[in-house]
């Protein structure tokens, strides 16, 4: 599995310059069976990353550009009146036309620009892996992965995702602006004649096997307890919570956050060729697993407190051995 992951990463990196952490986080979401929310300014290669990933894993890919006028039917599909082919009588029937959600990897681009009604159309798909249209529930293909992006700058005319939907994302990944060397490499690759080609290295079946194997990775009690302690420490009413959390946090992480941390730690250890996660793995993934699950209070929002800082305080406050 370590070799497969390395090969997959290498294929993605043929197209995507830098952003190793983002790549690893997206692949983590893929192996964990969770969904990812990528946040970054436009032009950082979010869409390209996801498209490249889809090609590298030989899976169906669909992109949905979320706009304010996007309707749920535009995502999940709708039934339309169609004349049957070869039928000269002109008889028509109501047939379901699947939406773009029916793909293995769905890119929900700028998801916060759609209305909450449309955003909620993703809830069932992300949580249950099914889509209900009309009176029929249809199963989405497996694997099914939603990778959403959102722009943190242009808040005008956006609809922040509700907490319930945020909680359904495994990770929230910050896509950082590339460095100087990375920018030069991007320019070289994107403005020349040679376009990098991506070869599919995994298929859906192999990904399914890897997902099972990830869940078979043993975890020590101390790591599990550490995950729990970290999660509890994000709650302002927990005795172990740092002062910043107590002061600026309204709600801490949900149990899905603990699941995300543990799964992320398991997958992270496989990236490094290790057979069991350590507490350092948990620390490494804690930010991405919790930052969209911890809700600041009014004071925190008013003072511009960074949730990442709160999580760093939590990690510093929770000892490895207890």
């Amino acid at each position, binding site marked *: 599995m370590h070799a497969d992951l390395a090969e997959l990463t290498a294929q993605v990196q043929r197209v995507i310059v830098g952003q190793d952490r983002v790549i690893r986080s997206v692949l983590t979401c893929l192996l964990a069976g969770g969904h990812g929310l990528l946040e970054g300014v436009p032009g950082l290669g979010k869409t390209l990353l996801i498209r490249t990933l889809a090609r590298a894993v030989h899976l169906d890919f669909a992109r949905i550009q979320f706009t304010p006028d996007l309707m749920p039917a535009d995502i999940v599909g709708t039934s339309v009146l169609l004349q049957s082919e070869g039928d000269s009588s002109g008889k028509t029937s109501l047939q379901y036309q699947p939406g773009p959600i029916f793909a293995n990897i769905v890119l929900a681009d700028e998801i916060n620009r759609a209305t909450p009604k449309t955003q909620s159309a993703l809830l069932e798909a992300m949580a249950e892996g099914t889509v209900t249209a009309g009176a029929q529930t249809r199963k989405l293909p497996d694997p099914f992965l939603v990778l959403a992006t959102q722009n943190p700058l242009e808040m005008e005319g956006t609809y922040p995702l509700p907490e319930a939907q945020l909680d359904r994302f495994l990770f929230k990944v910050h896509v950082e602006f590339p460095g100087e060397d990375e920018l030069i490499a991007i320019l070289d690759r994107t403005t020349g004649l040679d376009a990098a080609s991506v070869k599919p290295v995994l298929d859906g079946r192999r990904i399914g096997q890897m997902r099972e194997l990830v869940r*078979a990775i*043993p975890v*020590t009690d101390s790591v599990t307890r550490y995950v729990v302690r970290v999660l509890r420490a994000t709650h302002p009413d927990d005795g172990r919570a740092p002062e910043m959390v107590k002061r600026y946090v309204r709600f801490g992480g949900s149990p899905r956050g603990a699941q995300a941390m543990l799964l992320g730690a398991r997958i992270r250890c496989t990236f490094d060729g290790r*057979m*069991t996660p350590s507490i350092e793995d948990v620390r490494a993934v804690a930010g991405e697993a919790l930052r969209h699950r911890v809700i600041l209070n009014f004071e925190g929002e008013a003072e511009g407190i960074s949730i990442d800082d709160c999580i760093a305080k939590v990690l510093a406050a929770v000892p490895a*051995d207890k």
Partner: protein
Amino acid sequence: MNAAAPHATGPALDRLLAQARRRQRTADAAWALSRVALPVAVALLALGLVATRRLGLPQWSLWFASAPIPAVLAWAWLRPLQQRKLVRRIDEFHRTADRLGSAYEFARGRTPADPRTAAIVALVQHDAEQLAATLDARPAIPVRVPGPRALDSLPLALLGLALLVPIATAELASPLVGEILIEPVAQAKAKAGLDLALASPLRQSLRELSHADDEAAAAAKQMLEILDALERGEIDRALALEQLEELERQIAEAEEKFDAELREDPALLAEATQDLAAALQTEELTEDVGKALDRGDGDNAEQALAEAGDKADAQAESDEQMKRSLSEAERRLGQRNDEREASETAKQLDEAERRLRREEQKKPQDPEEAAEHERRLKQQRDKVEQLKRQHERELAAQKKVEELRRQAKEAAQSKAGSADRKRKLEQLGRGMKEASRTARGAQRMQGARDALEEAKTFVRRAGESGSGQDRRKQQFRRFDQAAKGQQQGQQGKDGKDGKGKGQGKSTLLVEGDVGQGEPNAMMEQDSAGQGQGQDGQGQDGQGQDGQGQGDGQGQDGQGQGDGQGQDGQGDGQGQDGQGQGQGQDGQGDGRTPGDGIGTGSQDPLADPTAMRSGTKDVRVDARRGRGVSKAEILKDASQHGFASEPYRKMFKEYRDFAQSTLDSDAFPAAQRRLVKRYYQMIQAR
């Protein structure tokens, strides 16, 4: 992770863990020693120093200050360690991503139910085992001694302050073994406490002396009361000494009275009764008579003799025993008188009369010489008178002994059962009783005098036990000088004009009050080298109470004398020899050399001199804590050294023997006191 049986860690991981544990305990010990034990120990040492200096705690209690050190060492080596933390430290140091820790934890968990998970766990442990074999726990757990903190200076400061605390000498009066404790002189003088161990032989002697109904017994009882009162602190030393001196005057009056009434020489009678007792103890029939006589119980001896006579009258065998014992008594008493025919006193009397005649023939040239001549004449006459009395008593004693001998002989020769035999035995019994009473009375009076001197010594020394090693050395040096002086004095040569020339300077130690005079005893020896010190007169430069009287005997260049000061104290130095002066009445200007030769010390180990030499009381800082005193040497030798018997037991045997010898023989007073003082010095403490 549900499962059945736990795994086990491999040997490499176990070894690594053991190494980590040792390392951790060493690191804990180093930290605890530097951060806790040493600062606390220094602080406790400071407190201990203060306690030993101010509260009188023994110095060995300072060792308790080191208690934190073993305590923290025990804590470091016995406290439970969280091995999971140790493994994590190794993982963190070697950047092994918790591989060892995970394996350790899996080994203590249950085997996973899922076969894939179990396989991964096995791989994890195998990987950890291989990794552990290549790792060293020591760099992961460094042993560092923490650096000093500002807080650490606090115990050091406390220790410095404690070292500045002066020793509370006034509160260290309790007798501690191995230490010589010094008290301020003024305080020691005022203190009434007695060394009970030292006083116990004296008390025993006084108790034995008090079991009678005479002046000696009364004096002994009074002495006991004085000692008891002093011990209880009801009176101080000064008052005790005053009472003892008053008692001494009473004893002197009693002695004078006893002396005036004395007709026979008690020493001769004592020797005769001892001979008689020994003779009577040779036979079973008269053994009780001899024993009673031996212990000075004349009444019982008389009664036992009467009973033995009755038994001899009844049984022929007993009669034979009676005759043998009486014959033996007659033989021994006769031998005693034969030996006494050439009496020393007679010779001395002849010599004294000869010197008196020679002195009377001298014609002084000037008034000053005439005064001196008169003084010498008086002295010589007194001496002649004294010797005459002594001679008469010896003659009377010899007559008494002869009478006893005759009575024994007649009793032995008389027929058993006859009235004559009974009468002779009654006469013999009465004679024994009278002789025993006379001898015993003198002995008891002498015993009372000895006990009084001893009591005075104790009282003077009470509370001065801490005068230290220097004082003891000084005493021994004086003793040594006195002994040498006496030896040289015995080798004194004739001097011209009747003054013997001793090679060594004579030393006369006379007890008395501090600051009273500087009596010098000057003995004179005649041209023939035979001198008799009559009057060792202290040269009283200033003290009027400096009294001394010499009683020296010189013969053929050998002098002997004894001296005792009544009130004065000081060193006498004879010009012409060595001698000891003793006197109760002698008092003079001290310019005239004393007669006779010889010197000595009535108490060479007595209190410091009362010479007016600008003495001042000084406090001697004796050593503390190291070395041993002489008393300890004796004690230690008796318990662990060469002695096979306890020192206390041997001392008692020797002292009792010496006491019995002193009681049975006629010893000069100075020698008696010297012997008693010797045993007083070496008695068990």
